[in-house]
């Protein structure tokens, strides 16, 4: 008699789906009866905060952009991991501190690389 155990669930599921479909259908019928469809060239144009869109949306980004993204990640990850590290700092053993230092070293390495590539120079 396992089937009967699931019967209420199935009934509820059907009711839920029917309710969703019914309200959608109601909205459709309502729109048909009362709300006239009004589209226009401006209304259907691309939303650009009120400005007319210029050019194509499919443009290529320079690879330099991804460099910025990576550098951002370096700082971001550093901040995310440093905060719990700082909170639990007093309870750390030597081994854990060394592990954290190695992690920081890896991040600093990325920073040094970026520095050498002159990414951080802002003109």
């Amino acid at each position, binding site marked *: 008699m396992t089937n009967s155990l699931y019967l209420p669930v199935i009934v509820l599921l059907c009711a839920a789906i029917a309710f969703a479909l019914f309200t959608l259908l109601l909205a459709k019928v309502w729109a048909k009866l009362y*709300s006239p469809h*009004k589209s*226009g060239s401006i209304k259907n144009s691309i939303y650009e905060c009120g*400005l007319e869109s210029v050019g194509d949306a499919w443009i290529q980004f320079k690879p330099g952009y991804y460099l910025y993204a990576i550098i951002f990640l370096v700082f971001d990850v550093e901040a995310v991991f440093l905060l719990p590290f700082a909170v639990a700092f007093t309870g750390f053993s030597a081994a854990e501190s060394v592990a954290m230092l190695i992690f920081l070293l890896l991040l600093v390495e990325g920073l040094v690389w970026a520095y050498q590539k002159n990414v951080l120079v802002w003109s």
Partner: protein
Amino acid sequence: MVDEELKNEMSKQGIVTTTLQELYNWGRRSSLWPLNFGLACCAIEMIATTMARYDMARFGAEVFRPSPRQADLMIVAGTVTKKMAPQVVRLYNQMPEPKYVIAMGACAISGGPFKQGYNVLKGIDRYFPVDIYIPGCPPRPEALLDAFMSLQKMIDAQQLTGPNRPRHLNADAKSEFIVPKFGEHDLEPAQNSTVWKAPLVQISGTETDKSAK
């Protein structure tokens, strides 16, 4: 159709009667979603209205939408410069029907203190219809709430059918308005004459007034 007296009597007894029109208007007015944009200092008051102290959420308008596609109320909060006017009109055009406009503050109504300036539009109602005007410089949040409740009363009184039905239920009424272009001296056109007609008012302090005194 149940008449008003019977309806009141029944509601006292715990029986609620309603019509499709009432239900529809109740739904519309209780979920007005404003468009999330401010133009000048009035926007600060608008932001204050949405925050906990004044709490616009009580009226179902806490959801400020960042896209005109999902908004049905435009609060023109602040000075509309001529350089900004085409963008505002285009945003209004991009909103789906039904859409309502509150002109908030002296600038949005008429240009306000900058009326004679070279780059300020003399009222946003020159380009699209405005439902509620709030005077003030800037209006307090209470004034915006009052305007909001006035708009809700207006929506409550709307009819689903008949010649007086609102624009969004009328297939013949246009929902897009002319977006002005940047001309050499002024916006072109300087006003949408189908929307705005210059009222012929008695100008205070005219020559005839002076001679009468």
